[in-house]
C-alpha cells in the first residue's frame, strides 16, 4: 500500500510541476501573434528581399535575438522598441511558430 501511495504522489507532483512550467499556448493564438510580424518579415515569416526571414529559424535563435533586443545588448533601428512590447512567454510561442514554418 505504501509503495502505491508514494508512486501516485510522485506522479501527481510531476504532472503539477510540468503543468505550471509549460503554460500551453493555444497554437492558433501563437499563429495570430506571429502574424503580427508578417508586415516586415513576410507571411509565415518568409520574407521578401531586404528583410530577414524567420521561417525555419530555430526557436532558440529567435528567442535569443529577441531577448538581446529587449535588453539592449543588440542594437537595432526598431526591434528593441517592438520586442519590449511582448512578454517572454509570447516571444517563446511566436518563435516556436516560426521555427515550425517551411523556409
Amino acid at each position: 500500500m505504501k509503495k502505491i501511495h508514494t508512486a501516485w504522489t510522485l506522479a501527481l507532483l510531476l504532472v503539477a510541476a510540468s503543468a505550471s512550467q509549460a503554460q500551453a499556448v493555444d497554437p492558433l493564438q501563437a499563429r495570430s501573434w506571429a502574424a503580427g510580424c508578417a508586415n516586415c518579415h513576410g507571411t509565415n515569416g518568409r520574407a521578401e528581399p531586404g528583410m530577414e526571414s524567420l521561417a525555419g529559424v530555430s526557436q532558440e535563435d529567435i528567442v535569443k535575438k529577441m531577448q538581446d533586443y529587449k535588453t539592449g545588448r543588440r542594437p537595432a533601428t526598431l526591434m528593441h522598441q517592438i520586442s519590449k512590447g511582448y512578454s517572454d512567454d509570447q516571444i517563446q510561442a511566436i518563435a516556436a511558430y516560426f521555427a515550425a514554418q517551411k523556409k
Partner: protein
Amino acid sequence: MRIVATAIKGLLYVAAALALSPCWAQADEARAKKIVSGVCFVCHGAEGESASEVFPRLAGQHAEYIAKQLDNFKSGKRKSTAMADMVAKLTPDEMLALGKYFEKQSAPVEPAKDPALAAVGQYIYHSGNKFSGLAACASCHGPKALGTVALPRLAGQYAIYTETQLKQFHQRERTNDNAVMHAIVSKMTALEMAAVAEYLSSK
C-alpha cells in the same frame, strides 16, 4: 619602342595616381563617412567601435581585409543574411574606401572579464598546443595580433565574436577564408577557443 611606350604609359599612370591621390583620398573618406553614418553605424558604431559585443568591431582592421569581406558578403561567398542586404549596392571602390576609413579608427580596449581564462588564451595564442599539434595563432596573425594585409587583426575584437567565428570555421558555417582556419580550429577544444578569444579582446 614598345617597351618605351609601355614605360611611358606606366609613368603616366603613376603620375596621375600621385597627382590625384590626395583628392581621391578625400573623396573616398567623405564617401565612406556618408555610408557609415547612414547605414553601418547602427550595428558597428559611427567609428567602427561597435558598442555592442553582438556586432564585430571594425576600428583598426586592415582595409584590404574589410574590403574582401564586404566583397565576399556581396557575392555570397561569405554567408550572412544580415550583411548580404547591407552590401548589395556597394561598389568595389566604396568597399575599399570603407576599409580605409575603418582602418584609421581606433577603439578603446577593455581588460579581460576573466583574467585567468585570458591567461590560458595568451599561452595558446603565442605557443599553440604541442600536445594536440595546434600551431600558435601568432605565427600567422602576429605577436601583437595585428594581422597583415592578408590576415585580419584580432587584437581588441569582442571575445564573443572571435569565439563565434572560431566555432563557425569549425562547422564550416563561416564559408570563406576557410581552407587554413578549418584545419587549425579542428584541433582546438572549446576551452581553447574561449580562452584565446578572451585574451584577444583585451589586447
